């Protein structure tokens, strides 16, 4: 059995766990804990402390694993471990919380430093009224026009599929360009 993996990362409460839950064929193995910080508890009750783990069986011989990183900064020692051997990664950002954009940018740079694999950025919660426009998010994150920034609703399977497919297309394109070893 061959296995490959992708990593879903992003700031606290960006929607990483929901993203994986939407497409995983198993219940996401989530290591969530109640949040101790009062400020963060105002955003949500529980957070991922080690990782989320989802699975998509491709065929008898191939399985794709999706790993979600812990969102809180104090667990960032897990990031490098999770990034080892990934095909590519997705940076999730909550479009309704511009105060997290700077952290998203930092996470993006950190993962780029870990491994030169393709990545896409998913602007989550685009169904919410107070979500920033996708191009505004691009400017705020200082993303190069060549970086794929995709509108996303992590609870919607079709939306999640689109993001995963765009990442796979990027991986394929990079192979065609001969960058990938």
């Amino acid at each position, binding site marked *: 059995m*061959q*296995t*490959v993996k992708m990593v879903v990362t992003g700031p606290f409460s960006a929607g990483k766990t929901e993203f994986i839950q939407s*497409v995983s064929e198993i219940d996401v193995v989530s290591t969530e804990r109640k949040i101790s910080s009062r400020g963060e508890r105002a955003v949500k009750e529980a957070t991922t402390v080690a990782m989320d783990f989802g699975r*998509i*069986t*491709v*065929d008898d011989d*191939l399985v*794709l694993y999706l790993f979600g990183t812990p969102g809180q900064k104090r667990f960032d020692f897990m990031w490098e471990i999770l*990034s*080892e*051997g*990934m*095909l590519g990664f997705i940076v999730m950002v909550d479009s309704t919380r511009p105060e997290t954009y*700077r*952290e998203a*940018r*930092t996470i993006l*740079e*950190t993962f*780029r*430093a*870990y*491994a*030169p*694999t393709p990545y896409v950025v998913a602007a989550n919660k685009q169904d919410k009224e107070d979500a920033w426009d996708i191009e505004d998010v691009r400017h705020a994150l*200082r993303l*190069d026009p060549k970086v794929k920034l995709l509108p996303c609703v992590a609870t919607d*399977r079709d939306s999640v*599929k689109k993001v*995963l*497919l765009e990442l*796979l*297309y990027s*991986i*394929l394109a990079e*192979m065609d360009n001969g960058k*990938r*070893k």
Partner: protein
Amino acid sequence: MALRGNLRDITFTQILNLINLAKKTGTLIVEGPGQTAQVSFREGKLVFAQIEKEESNLATVLNKAKKLSANQYRAIMQHGSAISDKELGLMLINAGYISKADILLSIQQHCVDIAHRMFTWMEGFFRFENDMLPPDNRINVRLDLENLIIEGSRQLREWEQLQDEIPSLDMALKFIDRPGADLKNINLSVEEWRVVSFINPKNSMKQIAHATKMSDLNIRRIIYGLLQAGLVEIVRPSGQAAVAKIRSFPTENKEEQKSLVNRLINRIRSL
């Protein structure tokens, strides 16, 4: 109980605050990133500071402060390296080369510079040796800690923000290919120009810092400014091997890798 621990848990600024409030006498020894610093205090005032393996004798301090010319410095180091700082200071004052105030101000600045460097050390074991003071042949100053503590707090905040923005200095920089962006029309300081002259995807930010002899804090400050101005972007250094040590694909064969990605695409589409 001995004052000891790790800067990860208690910052240098917090230690200074404690020494100031408790009016401590002794030497703080900090094992920072690749170097060890010793900072001595008498009744809560900073009296001397040095980094191990870095010259901190009076001649070096005065040369750094541009109070001694290169030739004078060379002559002293060749012929007078055996004499103590106090003797050298007296000789220079008596010879009319320098005033006592200049000597004290230069040593103060040397101590402040070391403290500023230590503000950026985020990790490292420290211990405070009660009543241990610099050797008698060293000239001591008396520096109030309040200003240092305020400056340290300011730098710490700035450092944390800059680390968030530029987490790794192992990455390189390249100029953004943007119409209208022209360096000639932008006012840059001498330091910024020095950094700009090294910007090339082949040079990591760490290498640029080394070449320009800048601290991590200073190089981050300048790069942050260039990033904010939209002049440069962070890229992986060209020619550098991928960091990922573990293979992404279970096979080395390119065609099999492509086939695998296509199988993934088909599967995701069918979900």
